[in-house]
């Protein structure tokens, strides 16, 4: 099934978002990744690539990202990884929840999961 990766500048934020999304995710693999590798805020391409590889079981991976350089580093990681991976242009938490639900659909594909993640762009809260 399609796997998910949640990338944040903060490793703890990534873990928290995965915790929220996992409630809806069934057996979907969701990997959190974040931080600059030295205990600080940031993102590192190698770590994201490792998370993508860990989330992939052959059906591809949708990557959720937070801001700025996280997008670029995820882009680098997707380029380096052998897995078929795409970045969703979506808010990171809402997109992760949507993607987690979509991934549990037996007919889910990489495209359908990404589309559902990106549908979170239109979520209104009030």
């Amino acid at each position, binding site marked *: 099934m399609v796997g998910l990766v949640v990338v944040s500048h903060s490793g703890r934020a990534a873990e928290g978002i995965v915790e929220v999304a996992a409630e809806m995710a069934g057996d979907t693999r969701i990997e959190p990744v974040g931080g600059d590798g030295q205990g600080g805020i940031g993102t590192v*391409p*190698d770590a994201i690539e490792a998370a993508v590889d860990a989330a992939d079981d052959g059906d591809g991976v949708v990557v959720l990202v937070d801001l*700025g350089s996280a997008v670029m580093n995820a*882009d*680098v990681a997707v380029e*380096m990884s052998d897995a078929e991976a795409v970045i969703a242009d979506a808010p990171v938490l809402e997109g992760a929840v949507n993607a987690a639900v979509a991934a549990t659909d037996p007919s889910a594909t990489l495209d359908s999961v990404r589309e559902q993640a990106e549908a979170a762009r239109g979520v209104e809260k009030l």
Partner: protein
Amino acid sequence: MSREGRTDGGTADEATEGAAVVAAVEAVADRIEDERDHLTELDSAIGDADHGGNMARGWAAAADAARDLDDPDPQSVCRTVGKTLMAEVGGASGPLFGGSFVFASAELDDGVTAESAVAFAETYLQKVEDRGDARVGDQTVVDALTPAVHTFKKSIETDELPPLEALAKAVDAAERGVAFTVPIRAKKGRASYLGWRSVGHQDPGATSALYILEELLATAADALDSEVPDADATSPTIPDEEPDDAAGDGEGDAPPEDGD
């Protein structure tokens, strides 16, 4: 271009080229360390004041990694430098400066020739533009790289200048590009959050790119046992030639006929 056809006059094999590229990386690392405070000063005016420290740390690690390679050839050095920068620099500069090295190193399969250097430069610029979604005039590193890459390509392909002179012109072009970042408004990167207040500030990333190119030029001159040529990115003025075929006397102006 075949090895026999190389125009740098050198007989450098891959190992010698590799050693020269390692020397260039070491020179860049030293230069960025020397400029660390200046870069941070530029960044503190419009960004988060970490560019000098990040780049100095990244390039020092890149120089270490390049030195540790067993059989460095230009491609392996560029790939190693890129990967190290991505891992160590942090922020957007890691993927922009480093990721583009990794990607463009694919152009160096057959070592460094005038032709592969142009391909490397074009691919590098393209990757920075795509990844950063930045164009000329956004007050970013693209403003230094674009004139440098265009001038280098034109000097090699159209003017058929020796590579060292082409590179010297490219450095002059980059310097003009850095100056161009001062009076324009930032549209990308951290500085863009400042809106109009970004006008009047020199872009730190463009400045770093200039230092890198300056050191590349100095090391290339060194490796070729030459002086750094005194170069100017401007071309001689092309005389205004009005085709004087108004009277139907177009002799000499007509395109050559492809007769058989």
